[in-house]
């Protein structure tokens, strides 16, 4: 069983950057242009790793945080893949949720450590968005666990799909979209507004690490929502993991299309709209639970 987890981990570490290449190809098609080859993002990341190692001026702990963030992200994916096929603790879901929050915090603290106004503005925008988004994430995972009794993937046996559970998963997908910093929620990067915001001071290997971490992050949150969804239907750990990865890939493509037919939001608009959406969905879900719909 552990071999399946191992293969999954390798896939999960390689495929996100590839999927980004596919996303660029999709974007190009929607733009009516040819676009780069599918492996382009991998070429880019590898090329960045080959560049001079340059630490931005006035950057404190940036490098450390960057690699820490990458490490946590890999740990998160590894832990999740193993926990699905071979449960580690009875509270794996909680461990994963906590690790996810830590990974987000580590990720956003990278641009905060660089004394560049664009970087800081980008990061502060991201934090405002996160306050809404992460809060919702914890609430949704909590509700899910409460509804289904799933606290680890060892306990998926008894769970069955109900409308209110599906609502929380739907909201988790919204969360995963927002957390992927795609348009309309790429306000922290917002190239034409704040010159790529949180990316502005990063270059060479540091930028490579940052981008790779971002790809892993995008993959993980989609995978996580897919696992919780499919856990309601598939009861074998290995099959659950494999099918969740497939669903994640499909979702990635769907997200890629959505990102290209919308415009960028603004930090005040985005956070308020999101807050409203989450509150409505959570309220409906709780209501559904009590009415047993």
């Amino acid at each position, binding site marked *: 069983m552990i071999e399946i987890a191992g293969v999954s981990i390798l896939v999960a570490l390689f495929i996100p950057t590839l999927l980004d290449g596919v996303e660029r190809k999709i974007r190009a*098609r*929607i*733009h*009516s*242009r*040819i676009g780069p080859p599918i492996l382009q993002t991998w070429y880019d990341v590898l090329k960045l790793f080959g560049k001079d190692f340059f630490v931005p001026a006035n950057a404190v702990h940036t490098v450390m945080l960057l690699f820490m963030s990458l490490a946590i992200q890999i740990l998160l994916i590894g832990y999740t893949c193993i926990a699905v096929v071979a449960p580690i603790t009875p509270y794996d879901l909680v461990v994963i949720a906590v690790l996810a929050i830590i990974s987000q915090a580590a990720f956003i603290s990278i641009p905060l450590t660089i004394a560049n106004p664009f970087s800081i503005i980008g990061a502060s925008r991201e934090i405002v968005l996160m306050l809404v988004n992460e809060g919702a994430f914890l609430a949704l995972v909590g509700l899910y666990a409460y509804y289904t009794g799933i606290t680890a993937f060892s306990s998926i046996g008894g769970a069955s799909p109900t409308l209110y559970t599906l609502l929380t998963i739907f909201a988790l997908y919204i969360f995963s979209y927002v957390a992927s910093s795609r348009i309309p929620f790429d306000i922290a990067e917002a190239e034409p507004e704040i010159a790529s915001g949180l990316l502005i001071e990063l270059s060479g290997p540091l930028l490579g690490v940052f981008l790779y971490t971002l790809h892993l992050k995008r993959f993980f949150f989609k995978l996580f929502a897919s696992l919780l969804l499919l856990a309601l239907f598939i009861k074998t750990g290995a099959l659950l993991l494999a099918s969740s990865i497939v669903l994640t890939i499909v979702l990635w493509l769907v997200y890629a*299309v959505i990102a290209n*037919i919308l415009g960028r939001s603004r930090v005040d608009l985005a956070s308020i709209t999101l807050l409203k959406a989450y509150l409505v969905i959570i309220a409906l879900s709780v209501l559904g639970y009590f009415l047993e719909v």
Partner: protein
Amino acid sequence: MGKLGFVKILVIAAEAGRVTRKYPYEPPLVSSDFRGKIEIDETKCIGCGSCVLACPPNALVMSDEGEGYRVLKYFVGRCIFCWRCIDVCPVDAIKGTREFELATDNVEDLDEAVIHKRASCTECNGLYSTVKQKAYVMEKAPITENYVDKCPECRRNKLLRAFEKRRGGESLE
């Protein structure tokens, strides 16, 4: 479609298809009327300098060099491809092309020159105009053959002397 009208962009994209090209592996989109680099036919050029006077960015310049040569230089790097030189050339020596891929790693590739032999005055041996321009003038206006052999200076002196003779006075010089 109502509120989801923006999804129509996918239809627009599908209808438009792929519009970019794999240039330089596919031919560029250049229309029949495109103005590109000019070509100077050195067999036709008479070195009169009309193009140099018309050229707005000084891409065409003329200078006297060495012993008895007049050189028309064309530097593509300055050229704005307006083709005014083609308009004004009296002998149609300049031809427009549709060539535009002019980038090079050697700046000398951007230079072109037509070298003319200058005419020499039969009286003072001084250099003036070009041999070909002299021939052109003689061909167009045969009546000029009496004085076209002389440089402008000698020509003027000759004229002044003629006046002197007629009026019986002394030259101002």
